[in-house]
């Protein structure tokens, strides 16, 4: 297979495939970060994670629609505002859901799974009733659409770069917040020992609520970013949910570094395999490998003591 190409082409393949893998990696990280926070830090399984992402996507759609209609001048930069709004919308919905549902179920992780699945069905139908069953198209500013041609062969998509940049920014932000800020310390304290955390004066309920909201908010940003590369429809969220969970579980719950490492491994494996075989088989093999490794090493790549 490699013999068919010249050396120049071969290096281009490597470069482009490397980039394809990296952009898949950033997509995975964006999807999984919010879930890693919620699942890893709180032990809650949020099956509606995909729907929170789609909420972000719909907010972006609304923004693009409103901006083109009312203030077309601002169109080139609307995307940034859209991402902030997407975060706010998903964050608020997340806080609401935590208050209404999740806080009653902290001792029953399997039940959160069922309840949030129910929530995801309801949200899907809400999207369908509000925005219609058809997919909506989000128009992007021109500057985000093109690609940078490095050589004849190698072209780097700008939106791919954008997603990567965003991923780095958010991952770094989450890291700073978890490792450095007071809030992050509180989250970790509650994770390690809820009773003691409460005893030293941390408002554990507030921490729970904000953590859940934060996870959902990041999902919202991810959804906004995915309007650049994927579809926005009522059921689009379900496309992501299994992959996302596998990334988090494979990385080891509770470890953000683990999530990132596992997103890297899975994305590189998948994009490499996709190059050498048909997409369907590549997907099956990737999932099989992940499941296989999880059977050998159930705690995931990285481990941390989690709250029981």
């Amino acid at each position: 297979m490699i013999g068919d190409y010249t050396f120049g082409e071969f290096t281009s393949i490597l470069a482009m495939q490397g980039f394809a893998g990296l952009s898949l990696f950033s997509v995975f990280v964006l999807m999984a970060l919010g879930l890693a926070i919620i699942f890893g830090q709180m032990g809650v399984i949020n099956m509606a994670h995909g729907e929170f992402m789609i909420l972000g996507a719909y907010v972006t759609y609304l923004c693009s629609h409103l901006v083109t209609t009312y203030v077309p001048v601002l169109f080139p930069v609307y995307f940034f505002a859209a991402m902030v709004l997407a975060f706010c919308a998903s964050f608020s919905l997340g806080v609401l859901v935590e208050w209404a549902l999740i806080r009653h179920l902290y001792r029953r992780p399997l039940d959160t799974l069922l309840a949030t699945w129910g929530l995801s069905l309801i949200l899907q139908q809400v999207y369908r009733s509000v925005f219609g069953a058809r997919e909506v198209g989000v128009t992007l500013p021109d500057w985000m659409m093109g690609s940078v041609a490095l050589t004849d062969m190698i072209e780097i998509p700008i939106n791919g770069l954008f997603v990567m940049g965003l991923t780095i920014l958010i991952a770094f932000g989450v890291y700073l917040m978890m490792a450095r800020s007071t809030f992050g310390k509180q989250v970790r304290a509650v994770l390690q020992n809820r009773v003691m955390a409460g005893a030293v004066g941390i408002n554990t309920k507030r921490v729970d609520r904000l953590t859940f909201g934060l996870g959902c908010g990041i999902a919202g940003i991810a959804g906004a970013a995915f309007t650049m590369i994927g579809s926005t429809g009522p059921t689009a969220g379900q496309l992501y949910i299994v992959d996302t969970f596998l990334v988090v579980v494979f990385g080891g719950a509770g470890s953000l570094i683990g999530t990132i490492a596992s997103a890297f491994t899975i994305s590189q494996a998948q994009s490499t395999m996709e190059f050498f075989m048909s997409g369907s088989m590549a997907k099956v093999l990737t999932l099989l490998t992940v499941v296989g490794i999880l059977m050998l090493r159930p705690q995931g790549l990285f481990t941390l003591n989690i709250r029981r």
Partner: protein
Amino acid sequence: MKEDPSKNLMSVTRRSLLAGIAAIPLLSITGMPLLAADYPTATVNTTGLAVTDDTVKVGILHSVTGTMAISETGSVQAEKLAIEQINAMGGVLGRKIEFIQEDGASDWPTFAEKAKKLLVQDKAAAVFGCWTSASRKAVLPVFEQYNGMLYYPTFYEGLEESPNVIYTGQEATQQILAGIDWVVKEKGAKSFYLLGSDYIWPRTSNKIARKHIEKLGLEVVGEEYYPLGHTQFNSVINKIKLKKPDVIYAIVVGGSNVAFYKQLKAAGIDLAKEKPLLLTISVTEDEILGIGGENMAGAYAMMKYFQSLDNDNNKAFVEAFKKMWGDDIVIGDVTQAAYLGPWLWKAAVEKAGSFDIDKIKAASPGIELTTAPEGYVKIHENHHLWSKARVGHAQLDGQYKVVYETSELMEPDPFPEGYQ
């Protein structure tokens, strides 16, 4: 069984059809609606269908929930419009059509269950519905067992011919062959990259395309399938860049479509430059709504109908459709084919002078519709439609411009010899 499609066989039906779609405002002049009194229920309905002296019940069976709702919404709207228009001009044999809508929920067994309900319990005189091949395969045994009539709107892979189904979309050869000939002749294409979602329709269509391409002495440089719902196409785009085909022949469906075209554009493949040229059979105007006209502009699609089609029938159809469902709506190939269903059924009932399924089956071949938005269509012996194949060129506004149409009607050939 070959027929000459231009021969005017059915003048009786033609009369009633002339009063059809385009001519609705002229109803009072041309239309002499058939009166129910001339057709007593006991004689037009000998098998216990849901036909009374002034109504007839039909079923609409599509997904309004689940992943397929995205695609099937347009078909439901078209069928409702057709039924409303038929009722406005006096119904079928003087009977108003009442429809019972069921939700297939994007789930094949549900389709089978609902189809059975429509036939057994509701005694629907005809059912307009199904979209995916899988849903049709699921309901087919039900329609054959309980002897119902299904009008199936989607372009599909062929390899099927049931007396209980009228296929109002194109089968694979009708959709594919003329388009490939066109791209070879007009665009000088020599090499093709075939790409599709992983299920029977793309695989069968690609098989036919590959055989045809190879018969023309040209080359297929790659063939790839991705799971339904796949959203990352960077690797295959890289492969396309390496193989440098003249034509990307894409049959990606559903949510994957949006991801594919957005990523194609982002990777620097500008479809407007036609290097490579992109030819698709799966993207109608409906799908472009989600993909975005700017991402699709420059691509070519092979279908039988585009919303921009320039004829009087279509103008009236588009106007009526927008009036009923809003100005923002777009109409794709399948939507138009779904719209034909009730009209073809009406024509068959009137030709047979009866609602009985067996009589409709017998009467259907040869039925022609001069008022179809796509132009003239006629039902073949094999229950598919004679229709023209067209190539559309995607524009920035999300519409297709028709750049080519076959001069003759294409004969439907669901079991194409030499292509299997």
